[in-house]
Structures are given as C-alpha cells and as structure tokens.
C-alpha cells in the first residue's frame, strides 16, 4: 500500500518534470466571467449561373456564348467584418480563408469569438491584403505551399480558375486565370458586401448561425459592356489590365442565399 503510493508519487513527479514551460498559461480559475461570445459559420456553394459547379465533367456556357469546363476554382476570403444591428462592427482576427472547390472541407468555416448579438451585414476581401504579400513566410491558409502563390514575382494568387474551352487557342484549349496583383493600379483586391436581404444572423449561447453564400463563377466572364471572349482572354498569369478587368467582374460573384439561425 505504502509502496504503491510512493510509486505513484514518483510517476507524478516525473510526469510533472516533462512539462516544457512552467509559464504555460494555466486553465482559468473560478471567477471567470460568463461567456459573451459565440460562433458563426460561413458555408459556400460554388455555382455556374444557377447550377452547382461540377469539376471537369460538365460543359457550361459563358455570357459570351462560349462553351467551357472547369478543372479548378479557388479563392481567398479575408478580412471578414460583421456588422451588428446597433452599428458596431466585429472584425475577425487572422481572417484568412482559402476556399477550394476540390476540397469540400474548405467550403465551410467557423468564425469564433463573435460577440452575442444580431448581425445584419457582412463584408470581406476577395484575396489577401497587401500587408501579407510583403511579410515573408506565412502559415495556415496563407502558407506558401497552397498552390496560390507566385514565387517569381512575390504575391498571392487571390483567385484561380482553370479549365478548357474549344474557343481557347492555348495549348490543349486551356483556360488559365491566375488572378494576382496587390499594388497600385494593378491591384485585384476587391472588398465586397453581399446583402443579407433583410435576414439577420443571431449569435447567442445556444445558436451558431450559418450564412450560406453562393459564389458564381459565371460572373467572372460577365460584363455589361464587354463579356469575356475565351478566344482572346484565355491565359492570365500576371498582374495587369486583364486581371483587373476580371476582378471588376468577379466582385459581383458572391450572394447570400439564406441564413440559418
């Protein structure tokens, strides 16, 4: 009996000595105030017009009447801000999310530490803000191995579409839209505010609301005065006028479909 107690004590001491850092934050003690923040979920559904996007196997038709397929559709959503009914704004910290059509798990993400309340509006940036384009090695969504980074001319590919169209004169009729550029006139960064359409999202201790958004790829190629023609615009792989024009188009691609409370 005594012996086994001694053994336990020794184990406890050794286990304790394994701890790396005595300054590790300790679990909170009595007196912690009641929680005042909850979570909110964003769910994205990628579309082409009214059809759910299917990679590779489905033919779509652009606004210009060009047939095309889609093999890749990725984009960054960053700097998310949520506006409460009282006008106050919650800004998500480290707000960088990479959505890839090929990765179902990337199409849903949670925003934590959102103060309880009723939210009436959202805004976010399509792409990665210029600060993180000039700050060297990054982690998480921004890690430089996520297929969304230019190595030869530093910067993130903010959004990426790849596919084919019989109208494209490129090798194998490829369509390659690598949308980048974070500086000056060539910036493709766009901040958008898709409307809640008088719905609201209420964050509380019992409710994690879900905002369902659609991202419509067909908007990339739609322009009131100048629809994109795949015969002439088939390859974009650097910042410049072509990329900027597409960004002006795609800033209309997001819409809030509905909100679950």
């Amino acid at each position, binding site marked *: 009996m005594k*012996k*086994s107690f001694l053994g336990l004590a020794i184990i406890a001491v050794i286990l304790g000595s394994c701890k790396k850092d005595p300054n590790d934050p300790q679990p909170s003690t009595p007196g912690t105030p009641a929680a005042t923040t909850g979570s909110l979920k964003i769910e994205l559904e990628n579309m082409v017009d009214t059809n759910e996007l299917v990679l590779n196997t489905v033919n779509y038709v652009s606004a210009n009447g060009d047939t095309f397929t889609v093999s890749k559709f990725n984009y960054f959503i960053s700097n998310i801000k949520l506006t409460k009914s009282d006008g106050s704004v919650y800004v998500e910290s480290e707000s960088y999310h990479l959505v890839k059509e090929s990765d179902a798990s990337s199409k849903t993400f949670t925003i934590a530490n959102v103060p309880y309340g009723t939210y009436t509006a959202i805004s976010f940036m399509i792409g990665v803000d210029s600060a993180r384009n*000039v700050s*060297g090695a*990054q982690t998480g969504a921004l890690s*430089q191995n996520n297929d969304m980074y230019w190595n*030869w001319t*530093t910067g993130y590919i903010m959004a990426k579409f790849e596919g084919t169209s019989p109208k494209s004169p490129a090798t194998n009729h490829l369509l390659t839209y690598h949308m980048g550029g974070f500086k000056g006139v060539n910036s493709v960064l766009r901040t958008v505010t898709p409307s809640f359409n008088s719905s609201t999202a209420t964050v509380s201790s019992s409710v994690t609301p879900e905002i369902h958004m659609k991202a419509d790829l067909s908007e990339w190629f739609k322009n009131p005065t100048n629809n994109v023609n795949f015969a002439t615009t088939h390859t974009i792989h650097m*910042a410049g006028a072509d990329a900027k024009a597409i960004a002006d188009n795609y800033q209309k691609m997001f819409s809030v479909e509905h909100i679950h409370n």
Partner: protein
Amino acid sequence: MKKGTVYIIICITLFFACKVDPPIKPVLPVDHIEQVTPPGWPQPVYTFPNNPLSIEKFSLGRDLFYEEMLSSDNTVSCGTCHQNFVAFANADHMLSHGVNGAFGNRNSPGLFNMNWNTSFMWDGGVNHIEVQPLAPITNPVEMNEDINNVLAKLNASAKYKVLFKQAYGDEQVTTERMLKALAQFMGMMYSYKSRFDLYKRGEDGVQLSTQELNGYQVFQQKCNACHKEPLFTDYSFRNNGLSVNSNLQDSGRAHITGDPNDRYKFKVPTLRNIMLTAPYMHDGRLSSMEQVFDHYASGIVPSATLDTSLQAGIQLSAQEREDIKAFLSTLTDYSFINDDRFKDPN
C-alpha cells in the same frame, strides 16, 4: 513486490519518454550568431521579425542551404550555384546549371548583406528574404521542384526530424519553418570586414596603398552614382547598355512590372567581393574586369531605356583601370569567405 517492479518499469519508461532525441552535433560548430549593423551603415530592411534568431534555426538553415533534396532529382542545392569560396557566387559560370542539364537564364550573384536588400533577384521580382528560396526551388531551369515534394522529402528524413525538433521544439516540417530557417542562415551572411572596411573604420591600423587610394578616388568620381557606399549599390534597376541576348530575350525588370519603361533594366549589383564573383553582368557575359571597363568605355548600346548617366559611356585611362582594380580588391572580405559557420557542414 510484483507491484513495485511494475512501478519501477513505468518510472523507467516515463523517464525515457521525457528524453529528446540525441542532438545532432554539426561538424562545423556554430558558436555565435548575432545581428550586425556596421558603423555608418543604414538600418537593415530585414530584422528577423517573427523569426527569433537561434543557433539551432541557423544551423537547420545551413543544412537546408546545402541540401540537394530541395531539387527535383536531388542533385542541386542552393550551395551548388552559390559557392562559399567565391562569396556565394558561381565560379566560372556565366549561367548556372539546373537539374536535367538545364541552363538558368541569369548569372548567380554573390550572397551577403541581404538584410539590406530592398528586393531580390536581378529583376527584383521577390520582395522578401524569407520567400526568396521559393523562386530557385520551383524554377524549372533551376531546382525544378514542387514545394510540397520538398516538405515530403524532409518529413521522411530522420536527420531533418531531429534538426527541426532542435530548432522548433517538434519534428513538424512546414514551409514557414523551412523558409525562416533559411532566412536566418542567409541573413547572417554579413560582409563588412574587408581591408577597405577596416581602413574606413580605422581598425587594426589598416592602411591602403597610394594606388588603392587613387582607385578609390576614381571610383568616387565615376562609379559611385550607382554603386553607392557603403553597400556599393543603390538597389535601383538600370539599363547599362548591354546588347539584348537574342537567345535569352530577357526583358529584366519589365518582366515583373509589365512596364515598357523598365525594359532591359536589371538591379545594380554590389561591388563588394567583386573580384571573387566573375563572370559579370546579369547573364555573366563579361568574364573579367577589363571586359567590364571595355563595355563602359565603348560597348554601350543606345536604347530607349539606357540609363541617362551612361549615354556617353565611362572612359578610364590605362592607369585608372589599374588603380580601380587595386581599389576593388580591397573590397574582398576574406574573413567572410573563411568563416566556418557558412561552410557545408556535411
């Protein structure tokens, strides 16, 4: 009794579970690293924010710098084209060799004082020391490798498991950790102890000869506008009148900016250690300092973007050429190239 034995076994097991893997001792031990801003120099651009210096990370960066697994066929490391004994330029190579017998498009520059760089590469396409290695690693005519393949190879290596754990506390190999370790190794490459530096700072009683001082004067009159002290470059992009190489068709800075006004402009290289880093120019076309003088005297090709300071060329007498060469030799930093901390530890 039996119970006691069990406890003893548990204790022993736990004791060993606590132990970290035996440390890998580098062949060339690193005894110190520290940031330096030599007297009279501007503040560096890169000061290791979010990348606290440690000997373990520096050493990991050194192993990575000399690691051939960073290339697609495991034959080319950073050190292949950046050789320690020539201040990390590529001796006798106009253009560097990549994997599969590929030729690069540009001459390998020396590597040192990179914390002062406002951009990287001859065209300035890379904006930060931490992400610079991504360019050669992924360039098809250099190391031709996918960054995720590099991570997979390093993750599978027993050696790197230990080195990453020593540097970061656990074995996980990530892009960020790899890049930051490389930045520590490259960022510690300071060259500021040439004879010229010692003379300027009045250290060790170093004097320059009359010829070297004459060369310094000519340099100040005719070269200093672009090769500005104390880094001996102003980091600008200029067209210095080289004919366009019809094979390479390299538009230089314009390749990055898309601006026709930047055509055929390349970054002004530093003149520090210049007598070690031949051949010269962005494509290594000039093999000696004499050829460089000839180019500036009579080889300049006029074009829309030719630098205004070079419209009339630069004329040097035979004596001035000899004097400038003597002066440039004082910019060779032997303490830098002889520093064991930067040599291949394997």
